[in-house]
């Protein structure tokens, strides 16, 4: 058919046939629009149940006189009376402590992180590769275990360091159970976050910018002060605020270190209210709202600072920035880095090993540990063989695997809808998926508890709810990982499969998934690692049959069985270490691929 006849036919048709109802077309359009948005709406609904509903219930409980339960959820009992609690000295004290803990540990983490990043990325100090490892290593020790180790090292009566000081005849015990102790432990275990951010900023910095300063006559010091420092400033501020946010919402360290000292932070205060008999759930919810609002504010500031960074320092140029000669300070700087390694990894690990291996529960002098038969693997082997440990290990691995699989799948579908379709709900999906970044895990845990008691799906009391919690809490990390990998992949690769006759789903399976394999695998492992360490949300969701490793450590410590806690911790670190090695292997594969 030639075009002219087509046109003529159309015109004739238009003249002769009565015009069809335009409403039909509109209906067809709406229907096709709905069909187009259906997958997006389903994902949004899932994320809504995972993330929004728990938060809504916490918010509701904060302004209600009853806890949301099946059949009793109503807006009838709205009250502001829970807020009265916020004016009590306990709540205010916890708030002040939280802020002090956040600020103090952010400062310590920033000083350590900045020092290590500078030495590692921009100086000529020896052993820089090892210093990079030092900067990252504490990340592989769950904060809970780190806190436990430091309480073994520096509890006032039985801490190894204090015993050693006593051996030396020094009568000054270091008391880790104090606010400064809490700040110290959080500071050293969150320093890696500052280190990684600053290291990437310092090593990716466009060398031309610095060289330009040198060319225009600036000596090294002036260059560092006028060019390097301002360029790194967003990363410095961003990482400080990040550590502030992470430590402010940290529950396990605050509980292990702060509780014996009677130092409450907002998370431990929430936990105390929740575990009181009868539970003061509504008060806990109102404190949770305050903590969440504070964290949201801090997270917003952090995102602002980090987003600015993109425009200033990132370049694709392979030019390596200039190294600063340290001269006489080369070895001293490396030794300082090694000292941090001792404090953050070596001493804690030794303490855990010693505690799990010592034959007698009480040690009065360090020399006692050197005597024959004073150390044995008996306790470790006993723990390894115990039902408690084996069940917890199985549960942990199972929860982490389910969470990693479900979380990665959900992240992939969510980022596909956001970045590969024109669905209008894409942005909303992203917003919801990123929300848990600004919600303390402990608040998420309470919300999930109420959500799943309320919903007709009976997963409360099973491992499934722990996996659900891990997916909800770590959704931002998973989503960010998958979408970064998706954005790196050219959309044409998938479209060309469609052009060659494959349907959209077929194309995703044949092309997109295989090509994103490494990115997806990394996100999977990230979910796995984070889920293995999770405690703050799970603490409200476990039952006696669904204890996971972190809960087992926490319970043992809580019951005063510090030797068992130490033994489980050692094995716990071992499991995480194995996972880290696998993750490293996969990451290495990515590097060689590119």
């Amino acid at each position, binding site marked *: 058919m030639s075009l002219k006849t087509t046109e003529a036919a159309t015109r004739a048709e238009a003249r002769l046939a009565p015009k069809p109802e335009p409403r039909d077309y509109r209906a067809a359009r709406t229907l096709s629009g709905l069909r187009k948005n259906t997958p997006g709406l389903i994902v949004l609904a899932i994320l809504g149940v995972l993330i929004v509903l728990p938060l809504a219930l916490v918010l509701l409980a904060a302004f209600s006189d009853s806890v949301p339960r099946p059949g009793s959820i109503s807006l009838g009992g709205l009250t502001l009376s829970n807020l009265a609690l916020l004016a009590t000295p306990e709540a205010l004290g916890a708030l002040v402590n939280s802020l002090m803990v956040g600020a103090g540990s952010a400062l310590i983490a920033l000083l350590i992180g900045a020092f290590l990043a500078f030495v590692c990325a921009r100086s000529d100090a020896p052993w820089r590769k090892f210093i990079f490892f030092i900067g990252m290593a504490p990340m592989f020790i769950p904060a809970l275990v780190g806190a436990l180790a430091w309480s073994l090292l520096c509890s006032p009566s039985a801490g190894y360091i204090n015993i050693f000081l006593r051996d030396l005849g020094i009568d000054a015990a270091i008391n880790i159970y104090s606010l400064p102790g809490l700040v110290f432990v959080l500071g050293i275990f969150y320093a890696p976050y500052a280190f990684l951010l600053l290291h990437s900023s310092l090593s990716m910095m466009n060398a031309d910018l610095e060289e330009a300063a040198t060319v225009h006559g600036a000596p090294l010091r002036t260059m560092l002060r006028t060019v390097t420092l301002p360029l790194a400033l967003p990363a410095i501020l961003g990482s400080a605020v990040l550590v502030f946010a992470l430590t402010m919402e940290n529950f396990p360290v605050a509980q292990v270190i702060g509780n014996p000292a009677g130092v409450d932070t907002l998370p431990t205060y929430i936990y105390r209210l929740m575990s009181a008999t009868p539970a003061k759930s509504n008060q806990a919810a109102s404190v949770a709202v305050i903590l969440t609002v504070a964290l949201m504010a801090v997270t917003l500031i952090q995102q602002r600072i980090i987003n600015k960074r993109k425009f200033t320092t990132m370049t694709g140029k392979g030019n390596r920035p200039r190294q600063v000669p340290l001269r006489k300070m080369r070895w001293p700087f490396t030794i300082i880095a090694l000292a941090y390694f001792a404090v953050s990894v070596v001493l804690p690990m030794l303490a855990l090993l010693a505690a799990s291996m010592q034959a007698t529960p009480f040690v009065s002098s360090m020399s006692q540990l050197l005597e024959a038969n004073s150390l044995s693997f008996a306790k470790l082997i006993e723990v390894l063989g115990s039902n408690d440990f084996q069940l917890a290990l199985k549960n942990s691995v199972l929860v982490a695997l389910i969470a990693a699989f479900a979380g990665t799948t959900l992240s992939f579908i969510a980022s596909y809808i956001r970045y590969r379709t024109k669905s209008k709900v894409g942005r909303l999906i992203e917003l919801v998926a990123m929300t848990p970044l600004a919600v303390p895990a402990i608040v998420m845990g309470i919300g999930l508890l109420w959500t799943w008691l309320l919903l007709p799906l009976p997963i409360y009391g099973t491992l499934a709810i722990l996996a659900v919690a891990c997916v909800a809490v770590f959704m931002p990390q998973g989503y960010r990982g998958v979408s970064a990998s998706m954005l790196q992949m050219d959309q044409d690769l998938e479209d*060309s499969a469609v*052009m*060659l*006759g*494959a349907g959209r789903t077929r194309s995703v399976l044949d092309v997109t998934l*295989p*090509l994103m394999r490494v990115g997806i695998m990394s996100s999977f492992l990230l979910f796995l690692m984070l889920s293995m360490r999770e405690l703050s949300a799970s603490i409200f969701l476990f039952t006696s049959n669904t204890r996971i490793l972190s809960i087992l450590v926490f319970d043992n410590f809580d019951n005063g069985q510090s030797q068992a806690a130490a033994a489980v911790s050692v094995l716990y670190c071992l499991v995480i270490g194995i996972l880290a090695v696998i993750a490293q292997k996969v990451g290495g594969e990515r590097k060689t691929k590119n």
Partner: protein
Amino acid sequence: MKISIQNLQLKYGSFTAIENLNLDIEDGEALVLLGQSGCGKTSTMRCIAGLEEPTSGRIIIDDVVVFDSEKGINLPPNKRNVGMVFQSYAVWPHMTVAQNVAYSLKQKKLSKSEIDERVMEALTLVGLEPYADRGASLLSGGQMQRVALARSLVMRPSVLMLDEPLSNLDARLRDRLRVELREIQLQLGLTCVYVTHDQHEAFALADRIALLQGGRIVQMGAPQHMYEAPASASIAHFLGVSNIMDCTPEGTATGSTTARITNSELTIQSAQQASDAGASPKVCIRAEDLQITAMPTEHPNSWPGTVRVAGFQGNDIRYAIQLESGPELDALGGLRRGEQHKVGDRVWVTVNPREVQILPAEVLA
């Protein structure tokens, strides 16, 4: 096969990427959509492919209505039998060359022997048969381009579309592939749609060029016609005419035109009729149409000036010449064609009135 695009419109929110575009592409024709980035040429191609959903209009490929906003027809890309070579080639690095090429045939569930036969046929056509089992990530840019081409040819598409097919290649390879592409297209009698921003590429590949500006086709025609008679000064500028000046045209008794250049004492004779000029007229002269001599010539358009810059370019020398009457002109002097001039030399610039075009600033489709 024939393609017909009727009243095509594409909007992103309030931004209009394509405005009321009508275009018929004949069977076996090579049509080039030419324009600057953001003119809507790639969007038009993606609408034909089905990767983009137009706001309204109708697209007919090979007598099949693949898109009709009024009737709610929108055939998915995999049902349109349209081949597309992406600018990035989009060759899949996790497959071998042969696997890449065989993909569309596997979707059609052909027998293995037929697939093998057609894959080898396509690879031979683009000269890649020795590379069949090589991993696609190990290929050079030119080879990837050929894989992408073979992958689209093997499906025997109703129409083959190529998005900036040569832009990622170095200059030498570009020249060779340009000829090869044209050869394959003519040999197979393929209907082809190219998208490019490079007028040389367009001239070499096209039977017909559709020039797009601001989401509309502003001029359409054979390459030679396009080169000789651009419809507006902005099209002339895009096609490489470098001397463009505002002017006031006045008709003369002989039917030719005298153009007074704005803000200068220069007047230029044009063989064109003054009435053809339209609104806000501009004088357009190609650099290669200007002659530079050390002595004045007899012609009416001969003006004295000084060489300000002389840039050696291999085949010719590019001069910037400051006329005594005001404007600065861009001229090409062939090395073999005549004299050479140095910076500071006093020269005469001459142009035949037939080479002087007086064009409206813009045209609306």
